[in-house]
């Protein structure tokens, strides 16, 4: 199996990432469209009625919530807009990372792994991961505050908490180290290319 060049794993991944990137862009537009609809639609229609279902993912734990009776939502618009805003920013980060990966794999497809451009893009991914980790914490806290203020479920108390995950920061740091390795590799490659 070939990993670099045309008709290789890199080539397949580049096409795959192109599709993912297009889907991400579509998702971002859909979220913006959704936000526009939410601001225009009547508040009462946004509140979850009896039988409403929600899926919630918490670090690998998937919860499927089904409302037996109508939940009391003080400001449904704020809740939905908060959720959409959170989704927009996080998908924005994913889109940016996928864009950088797409460009890197295009270079790998062209048979150029060690070039300064790849090092720069890997560094950008590392910084994006760290930034996304920080933004996620603050936006998550903001969203939690919106939910706590507006959502009332019988017997459940919602308390927002500012939580800085170390895992995202460590992954970002590891990617930054990898970017430095690539930068060094690009410098060696340049030396090799200019050795006659």
């Amino acid at each position, binding site marked *: 199996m070939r990993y670099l060049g045309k008709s290789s794993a890199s080539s397949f991944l580049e096409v795959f990432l192109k599709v993912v990137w297009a889907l991400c862009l579509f998702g971002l537009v859909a979220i913006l469209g959704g936000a526009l609809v939410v601001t225009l639609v009547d508040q009462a229609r946004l509140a979850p009625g009896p039988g409403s279902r929600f899926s919630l993912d918490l670090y690998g734990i998937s919860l499927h919530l089904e409302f037996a009776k109508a939940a009391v939502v003080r400001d449904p618009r704020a809740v939905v807009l908060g959720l959409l805003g959170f989704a927009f920013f996080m998908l924005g980060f994913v889109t940016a990372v996928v864009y950088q990966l797409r460009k890197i794999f295009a270079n790998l497809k062209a048979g150029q792994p060690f070039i300064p451009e790849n090092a720069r893009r890997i560094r950008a991914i590392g910084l994006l991961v760290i930034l996304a980790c920080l933004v996620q914490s603050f936006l998550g806290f903001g969203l939690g505050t919106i939910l706590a203020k507006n959502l009332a479920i019988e017997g459940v108390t919602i308390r927002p908490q500012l939580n800085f995950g170390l895992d995202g920061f460590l992954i970002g740091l590891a990617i930054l180290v990898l970017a430095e390795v690539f930068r060094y590799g690009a410098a060696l490659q340049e*030396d090799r290319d200019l050795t*006659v």
Partner: protein
Amino acid sequence: MAIKVNLDRVMFERKVTLTELAEKVGLTLANLSILKSNKARAIRFSTLDGLCRHLHCQPGDLLEYVPDEGDGETASAGSSAEHGKQQ
């Protein structure tokens, strides 16, 4: 770069074209152009050997030390290199 490659001068004196020399030495035209235009960062002994063999010259005929302007230390080193070349 303080090291100057005088390949074009030697080639002119020997009346050899870049294509002919590349073929004889076994280098690509692109690599020889890099060397001729002083863009090379390093030169292999095997390349130098091939060039000297086919151009009937010494490495010193191909390479020259030209001190950078305003660099006193390298200038003095340059003059000693020049002296060595004359010898």
